[in-house]
């Protein structure tokens, strides 16, 4: 088999692109979902600042989910059907949560003032529900889309931990985007949320190899074990460093305020690479490989041509938008 064989390479490229958009989604929507979760412990003025910290970004952040699911749909149609019918109810709950928070985001600022508190609560509830549903889906997917009680329990555990890690992302984003009392509060939030984030990553890392003998063999054989060792070690080091940092934030002159967020993003990336390594080459665990599930080569080629042109442009103007709204969040007005 030649290695420059398009039917072989294209599904691989699309698996990579899909992974990349899921990762970008988790990092970006992670922080704005997390801020929604942190609404539970913020006062009214803080809520407005928190919204201002994500206002210009959340629409675009959510678009990465559409791209990820879109790529699953268009590049791996068989897998899209199998995964989403198996996760029918959790997907519905995710969508329900996303709809609630999306509309609450806009309604809270536009309804008569006495109804604002209601939409704040809905924003919190929607964010939490969406995060829990994503975590649950991840847990069940890791266990090979199982439906037993064990899978449900594990799914629930991952759900709680993913919600906590989103809260950590949200807190880290607030450290970057806010100042004063709210920033100090965000540091405390980050410290608490980190504990659960670490717990969740350890749980998923342990469960994955034990749920599937195939994955066990990928990790615990020499010499692969040595090559892979940097993944968990580096994650652990970053965790400990970030934990230690939370006792020293914010720094004098607010230096490196974005570091906690970048560190968390790096941890997420390491975890994601580990997961991707475990499941490769399957897109539906132990059932469908990316080649079995892929669309026709000519269709993938025409999508790839467009993607290669457009994706750098998207990333470029996304950076531009983040730069326009860089710096500390102030009150958000339509001007």
């Amino acid at each position, binding site marked *: 088999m030649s290695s420059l064989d398009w039917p072989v390479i294209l599904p691989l490229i699309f698996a990579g692109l899909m992974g990349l958009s899921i990762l970008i989604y988790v990092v970006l929507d992670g922080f704005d979902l997390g801020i929604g979760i942190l609404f539970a412990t913020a006062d009214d003025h803080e809520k407005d600042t928190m919204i201002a910290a994500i*206002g*210009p*970004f959340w*629409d*675009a952040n*959510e*678009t990465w*989910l*559409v*791209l990820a*699911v*879109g*790529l699953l*749909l*268009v*590049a791996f*149609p*068989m897998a*899209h*059907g*199998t*995964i*989403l*019918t198996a996760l*029918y*109810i959790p*997907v*519905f709950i995710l*969508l*329900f949560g*996303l*709809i*609630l928070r*999306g*509309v609450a*985001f*806009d*309604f809270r600022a*536009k*309804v*008569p003032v006495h109804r604002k508190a209601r939409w704040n609560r809905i924003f919190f509830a929607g964010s939490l529900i969406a995060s829990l549903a994503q975590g649950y889906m991840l847990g069940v997917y890791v266990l090979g889309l199982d439906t037993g009680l064990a899978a449900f329990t594990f799914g629930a555990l991952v759900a709680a931990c993913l919600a906590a890690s989103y809260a950590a992302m949200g807190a880290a984003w607030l450290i970057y985007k806010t100042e004063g009392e709210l920033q100090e509060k965000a540091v405390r939030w980050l410290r608490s949320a980190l504990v659960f984030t670490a717990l969740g990553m350890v749980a998923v890392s342990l469960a994955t190899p034990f749920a599937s003998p195939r994955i066990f063999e990928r990790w615990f054989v020499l010499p692969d074990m040595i090559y892979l060792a940097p993944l968990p070690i580096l994650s652990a080091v970053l965790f400990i460093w970030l934990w230690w940092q939370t006792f020293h934030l914010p720094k004098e002159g607010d230096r490196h305020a974005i570091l906690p967020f970048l560190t968390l993003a790096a941890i997420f990336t390491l975890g994601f690479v580990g997961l991707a390594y475990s499941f490769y080459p399957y897109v539906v665990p132990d059932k469908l490989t990316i080649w079995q599930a892929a*669309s*026709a080569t*000519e*269709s993938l080629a*025409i*999508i790839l041509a*467009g*993607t290669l042109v*457009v994706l750098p442009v*998207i990333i470029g*103007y*996304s950076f531009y*938008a983040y730069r*326009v*709204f860089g710096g500390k969040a102030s009150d*958000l*007005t*339509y*001007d």
Partner: protein
Amino acid sequence: MDPLILSRIQFAANISFHILFPTITIALGWVLLFFKLRYNATSDAAWMRAYFTWVKVFALSFAIGVVSGVTMSFQFGTNWPGYMEKVGNIAGPLLAYEVLTAFFLEAVFLGIMLFGFRRVSNKVHTAATFLVAFGTTMSAFWILALNSWMQTPAGFEIRDGVAYATDWWAIVFNPSFPYRLIHMLLASGLTVSFFIAGLSALRYLAGDRSDSMMKALRTGVYTAAILIPIQIFAGDQHGLNTLEHQPQKVAAMEANWNTGPNVPLVLFAIPDEAAKENKYEITIPNGASLILRHSADGVVPGLNDYVGNHPPVLPVFWGFRIMVGTGLAMLAVSWAASWYLLRRRALPRPLAYLMVPMTLSGWLATLAGWYTTEIGRQPWLVTGILRTEDALGAVPGSHVAFTLAIYLALYAVLIVVYLGTLVHLALKAAKDGDESPLPGVLNRPLSQPVHGTE
């Protein structure tokens, strides 16, 4: 419970709810660009005030459009996996191009358009407004290309039971696409015109005579008055295109049971599919033959030629009539309002009262039109290639019933809150008039726009 009919209702509910909001944002983006360009050209702050009023409606509609659009991208997999398995090679790239070329563009520049007026230069802000409007229109382009392909497929071949693309140009520009795209873009323009006219009329009734409101009112009314005759012509052309490519749909729209010449135009009837006849019929002799064939003895296809292969008659027949009826009401109201605004520079109160409920006329006509064409495609999901029943997934009916019930309740609540918020915003704006400080120029006394003389 039958998962097929439940899944169909659920998809219909999701897409009906979703389409309401893109219908607004597609054209409202261009209207906002128009407001912005008028402001740039005249430095008249009233244009910018109209912009800020309507950009809020845009933001709200866009947010609901995004979250209900996310739902759509999951629906294919959760309920209709057979669809992507059969035609994924064609539907996939079209959907991918929509996300890549349109969705990101609008979502990213929306932030700058909404919140960036003071952070970027005026030129960049105008450009952002343009890119958002362009993005929403591109989105419509790709989605309508796919929908039209499902109505009139072209440029493909079937190998081993799966569709493969052979000619992308033929796929995108399939026979019904240009007609459907133009019809839908005009529908969006009309929906927005009546939204702006209707909510401005509400402010007018509340005593608001501010410059910015009158500018918006005139924009809405005149745009509607110009677009509606174009839409009637475009709709007629679209109908003739359907006659050529999907005659069974036209037969159902006209409730014509037997192929033949001198077919009357049925104005009112209750089609009875079991008896294959119309009850309580009111007709114009030779009307359908004249409209569709431009001659009294023109032969119009009848449902008898398509036994077992035509759509349910009653919803298609009535969907079409509700759309046309609403269109005619739009024509009457927009022309009357234009006449009064041009001649009297004022609206009579009864007309203003009529315009308030007409705010939703565009939604009604758009939904009725989509029901006509989508139900009119049945029993096919993709005409001649995939039957709707064959695309259904293996989800139990009880699950679908459960999610459907919650979706319906959620959508009902959201529509009520959405409309309530629009009314609240309009009445608040009516109370403030042009007295409230203009947010964009608060901190920039030196560059405050000079008021134009009018």
